[in-house]
């Protein structure tokens, strides 16, 4: 049998062209695709919410989110994705399926989403203006502060949206989108951001 090796590539490998895009001389929106992350969906089993909460607290040192928010837990981010469920986002193989399976044995069902989603980080002066074209979520800082999260839709595509830590005193919005819809949403994002001027890149680091 012929040897075959899987070549792991980002779903945006083809669509993402690093560099400037759209209006010249403007730098309103920064789009960074974050690659090669570990993402595990944790879904509480019926009647095991207390047990799951204890397991999460012991593992991450923080309480798992019970309302739409993203909780920073040192080397992982716990992002609410629905009632009694959240996503564990991390890097470097510390919180993979294999690592978390014994932690939540009996209290939650896990599903590896590492290669099922693309992660796009949106920042810049015009990030809110650009996202307002795609989302009906109120992103005003008074309402959607650091750590706020929403399971919502953009351009008819389900996404998980949350506000990360500010970077260079600017708000950072993270969007997790299904891998097969990533290219479509990416082009829609570029169209929305073009008038403000876009800086495009990809990164291996979670922000």
């Amino acid at each position: 049998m012929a040897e075959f090796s899987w070549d792991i590539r980002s779903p945006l490998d083809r669509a993402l062209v690093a560099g400037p895009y759209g209006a010249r001389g403007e730098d309103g929106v920064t789009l960074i695709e974050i690659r090669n992350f570990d993402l595990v969906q944790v879904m509480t089993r019926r009647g095991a919410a207390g047990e799951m909460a204890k397991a999460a607290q012991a593992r991450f040192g923080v309480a798992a989110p019970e309302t739409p928010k993203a909780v920073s837990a040192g080397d992982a981010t716990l992002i609410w994705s629905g009632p009694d469920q959240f996503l564990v986002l991390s890097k470097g193989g510390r919180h993979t399926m294999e690592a978390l399976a014994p932690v939540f044995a009996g209290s939650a069902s896990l599903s590896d989403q590492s290669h099922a989603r693309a992660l796009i980080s949106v920042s810049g002066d015009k990030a809110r203006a650009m996202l307002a074209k795609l989302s009906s979520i109120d992103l005003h800082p008074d309402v959607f502060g650091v750590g706020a999260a929403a399971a919502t839709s953009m351009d008819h595509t389900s996404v998980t949206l949350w506000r990360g830590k500010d970077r260079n005193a600017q708000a950072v919005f993270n969007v997790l989108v299904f891998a097969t819809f990533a290219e479509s949403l990416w082009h829609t994002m570029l169209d929305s951001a073009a008038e403000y001027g876009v800086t495009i890149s990809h990164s291996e680091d979670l922000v």
Partner: protein
Amino acid sequence: MRIVCPFCGERELGEFTYLGDAKPQRPAADAGEDAIYDYVYLRDNIAGPMSEHWYHGGGCRAWLKVTRNTLTHEISSVEPAAGAGAAKVGA
């Protein structure tokens, strides 16, 4: 029209899918043909407050029970359908 999801907050209609009347209850297995026929096929055409199932597929993927006035679209209550959220309902 907007629906206030008990898990997510107020969201636009586009994130939801309509299932239908939330009132019919599955009859017992020995309830007889008329009861099954009624459950499967017969629906009231309500002009006024109606209990409905909606699915928040574009958001938290929870099933909701919504009371909506079919004349005005006014929504008077939204609650998780049985089983939506392991901890909150039907645990």
